[in-house]
């Protein structure tokens, strides 16, 4: 016993150790995963974000490297502050302040000391900064805009916020995500796929080199380039024409539903939202409550459709066969209706009106009459109204277009239920909402809806959902943009209406808007609009509206123009439509005088009126 005790103890100790090791290393362990090893820092490597081209392959958006001076306060040693400040071109105050603040945040985690160095500064500093412990230069990718236009379409990118992080676990703190426009809609294509670099840490959380010589690293996958449907030249021209005016221009290629322009005026230079001045600029844009440059007016402005709506009222009346192309009424300058002999004014000049000259002269009486006939057919007012409402909606009005722009508004096309709620005794009829017939009343639309409507008219009975995407590198565009949406109205009625729309330019409201060599069809409009000043509903100068398409026989462009508070449709919106059409179809402008007139016109005094705190007059030329 005495001889063997120690041997027994040695052997049993070894056995216990081996069992314990078995428990620790084999039994109680999960398979080793590099992702869960907190001794390995996982650093994302960011791929190239996809470029954005316009329909003519002009590069609109690319990337630029940006260099930030980073600081790890814990590693900073004594340094010659004056020399250092001179090197970085910063003040002593900035230096002290920044050191203090980054230190308070963390002494170990790197923070940005000086953001967005210029390329020249970077080249100069790259070598010299090594002398200073605790400082280094980090490269980041920023968006580079090779254009000053289309900010509302292109959108912008920014760092992810908390809700982005919660929704999609692809993202992590500090990642860049598309926040608006194409950058948001096609984020998944543009962003590519992040890669991962594994870096060995020590227990003080310091990096000590790449893990396993980088053999485990995962390469990033570059983002896909996009081609959008915008014609940047036309877009630029549109933005120029809208100088000093609020409003929108939406142009669509009717045969495909591609958006040629989506001008929201005023806009801003997309380069303002990149780089060092970004938050300052954003705040300034955000604060402009008169012009609201951040608001995409082409997608978000809603207003009464006005006279262009008469096109639809006419089409439905023809389809419902309550009128024919030969039907005529006599306009006495006003339309008297109802038991109380209410009247609706008409500025067409009076006389006999058929569908053709009712459109060209924009006769209110005619459309009020046919609207009444449509709704009160067979005395089934509620049903008739609903079917009328459905037909109107089939033009893409009154609902989201379901396109690839991240924002939009439904607008408003009322149904019978809507009036039942207003008039609980169900005593309402076409005369109750007669202003619907001329696109006022409850009808609300957005510029893009209006453009789509006129594109459908140009196509004579169908449209493709207006969209912004033309080509995705390595993928096809969503199929919903290839689906033809048809309108249940016979083509022959569209032909009739087209004659009227063409007459607008021959003899009607648009006779001063002709472009030599191009047959245009169009319709002017004005829309009454109101605002609240100190809680009081106040009417403002009418919006100037115009819809058009050209050339008549083979429509290549359908356009809707809104000039807020521009008064007559043909004055500004009409001129802009013609200039845009000429620019797109011919490439140059024949009438420089009109062009200059439009460009130089400022409506600033109109926009200042509601904010002037003084009484003002409206609808003055």
């Amino acid at each position: 016993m005495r001889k063997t005790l120690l041997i027994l103890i040695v052997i049993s100790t070894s056995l216990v150790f081996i069992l314990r090791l078995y428990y620790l290393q084999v039994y109680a362990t999960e398979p080793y995963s590099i992702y869960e090893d907190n001794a390995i820092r996982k650093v994302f490597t960011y791929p190239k974000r996809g470029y954005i081209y316009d329909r003519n392959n002009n590069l609109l958006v690319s990337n630029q490297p940006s260099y930030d001076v980073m600081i790890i306060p814990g590693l900073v040693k004594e340094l010659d502050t004056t020399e250092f400040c001179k090197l970085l071109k910063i003040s002593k105050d900035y230096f002290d302040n920044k050191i203090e603040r980054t230190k308070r945040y963390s002494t170990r985690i790197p923070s940005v000391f000086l953001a967005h160095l210029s390329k020249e500064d970077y080249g100069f500093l790259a070598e010299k900064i090594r002398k200073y412990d605790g400082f280094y230069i980090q490269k980041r990718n920023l968006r580079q805009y090779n254009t000053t236009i289309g900010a509302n379409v292109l959108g912008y990118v920014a760092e992810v916020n908390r809700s982005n992080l919660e929704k999609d676990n692809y993202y992590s703190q500090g990642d860049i995500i598309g926040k608006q426009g194409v950058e948001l809609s096609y984020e998944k294509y543009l962003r590519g796929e992040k890669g991962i670099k594994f870096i060995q840490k020590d227990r003080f959380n310091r990096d000590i080199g790449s893990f396993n010589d980088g053999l485990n690293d995962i390469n990033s996958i570059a983002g896909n380039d996009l081609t959008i449907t915008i014609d940047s030249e036309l877009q630029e021209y549109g933005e120029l024409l809208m100088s000093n005016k609020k409003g929108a221009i939406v142009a669509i290629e009717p045969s495909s539903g591609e958006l040629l322009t989506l001008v929201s005026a005023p806009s801003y230079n997309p380069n303002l939202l990149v780089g060092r001045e970004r938050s300052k600029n954003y705040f300034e844009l955000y604060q402009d409550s008169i012009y609201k440059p951040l608001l995409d007016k082409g997608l978000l402005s809603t207003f009464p459709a006005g006279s262009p709506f008469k096109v639809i009222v006419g089409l439905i009346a023809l389809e419902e066969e309550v009128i024919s192309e030969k039907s005529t009424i006599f306009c006495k300058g006003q339309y008297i209706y109802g038991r109380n002999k209410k009247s609706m004014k008409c500025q067409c000049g009076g006389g006999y009106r058929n569908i053709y000259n009712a459109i060209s002269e924009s006769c209110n009486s005619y459309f009020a009459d046919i609207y009444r006939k449509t709704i009160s057919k067979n005395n089934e007012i509620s049903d008739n109204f609903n079917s009328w409402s459905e037909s109107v909606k089939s033009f893409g009005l009154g609902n989201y277009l379901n396109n690839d722009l991240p924002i939009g508004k439904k607008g408003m096309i009322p149904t019978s239920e809507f009036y039942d709620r207003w008039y609980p005794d169900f005593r309402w009829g076409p005369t109750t909402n007669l202003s619907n017939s001329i696109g006022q009343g409850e009808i609300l639309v957005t510029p893009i809806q209006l453009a789509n409507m006129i594109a459908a008219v140009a196509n004579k009975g169908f449209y493709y959902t207006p969209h912004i995407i033309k080509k995705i590198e390595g993928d096809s565009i969503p199929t919903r943009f290839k689906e033809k949406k048809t309108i249940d109205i016979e083509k022959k009625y569209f032909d009739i209406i087209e004659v009227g729309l063409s007459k607008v330019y021959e003899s009607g409201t648009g006779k001063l808007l002709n472009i030599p060599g191009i047959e245009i069809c169009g319709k002017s409009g004005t829309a009454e609009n109101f605002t609240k000043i100190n809680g009081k509903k106040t009417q403002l100068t009418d919006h100037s509206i115009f819809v058009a398409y050209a050339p008549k026989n083979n429509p290549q462009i359908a356009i809707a123009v809104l000039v807020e508070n521009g008064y007559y449709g043909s004055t500004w919106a009409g001129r802009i439509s013609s200039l845009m059409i000429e620019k797109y179809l011919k490439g140059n402008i024949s009438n420089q005088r009109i062009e200059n007139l439009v460009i130089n016109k400022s409506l600033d005094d109109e926009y200042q009126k509601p904010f002037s705190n003084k009484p003002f007059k409206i609808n003055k030329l």
Partner: protein
Amino acid sequence: MIGQRKNILKLDWVIILLYFLLLAFGVGNILSSSISGEEVNFLDLSNLYSKQLLYALISIFLGFIAISIEVKFYERFSSIFYLISLIVLLCLFLFGKRVNGALSWFPIGGFNLQPSEFVKITVALAVSKYISDFQTDLKNTNDQLKLFLIIFIPIIIIVFQNDTGSSIVFFSLFFVLYREGISQNYVEAIFSIIILAILSLKLSASVTVSVSISFILIYYLFKRKVRNKIIKIISLSSLCLITCFGTIYSYDNILRNHQKNYIKVWLNLEKDPNKIKQMERTILYNLNESKKAISSGGLTGKGYLKGTRTMGNFVPAQHSDYIFSTVGEEWGFFGSVFIILLYTILIIRIIYLSENQKNKFSRVYGYCTASILFIHFMINIGMVLGLTPTIGIPLPFLSYGGSSLIAFTLLLSIFLRLDGNKKNEW
């Protein structure tokens, strides 16, 4: 002259092979746990692994000298070595340098020398010499006391130098005393004291005392033909009483806070989750990181120089007391078992050779060597695996440190010399 040459040829090659295996493995793992850049430069003495390689070369050289010296030299001068070593230990109070609270280092040039490592050898020699003396009778209480004095004097000095860990090593010599025929009562007493102390801490002193006294009563009630029953019952019971309450008293009043914490961790005494959390950040940190490192090694390990936790220096003091966690992470279960088997074979081989010694001095010294190596092996690996309390003593031949490596090499070399001489005795 001819005889001496023969002696060298009779060295035990199994032990030498195991020694060199452990030594190489040690330098390799210290390289892994202390490497900072990409380049390995053994000539740059600011690297820990370069220093360790230097210590290894010095150790081999000194070991060679130790093997060349006559057996009689060790036997004859053992008491002088012992006295000198005690004086050197005492000198620490005058010229010593404190590292981590322990006053156990002489600063010599750029290096620190830890004399307590060498005292293990001199005590082993002294104990061997005293036991092997033909006048000594281990049954004799007087001789027992002298022997205890030999062992306890350095323990007391070292405890006063606040190096409790090193002092515990000397208790391993009780294995030697037991082998050489000291009364079984001592062994029983030591085991009883350890068990009673643990139970008192874990449960409570009063419960432990009452349970143990009832056992004593029952034992003597049923056992007949015992003389002085009452006296034995009373003395044993009072011993129990003293042990249990003495443990609690010294735990509460004598032990320092960190020592208390080590015991708390080991026996799982702390129940307050807040305090456990606090401990996880402080004293449990090493242990947890070391366990994580070992655990992450898995069956086959991450490969040499591939241990992420080792490379990241997550385990503090990994190159010294926690070197085994590097083995666990980089070499995995197989590598760790291999190292454990190397130690086991080495210790058992020493015991086996000791039993075969004709010279009593050699046999006792061999036993001392085996016991000292074993207690280091048990406490160090036990600590790294979270089985024994945290006591900072090195793992022989593997841990970083010149003093311990040289001392262990000398300890082993002297045994090799004694063993090599066995055929030439008489």
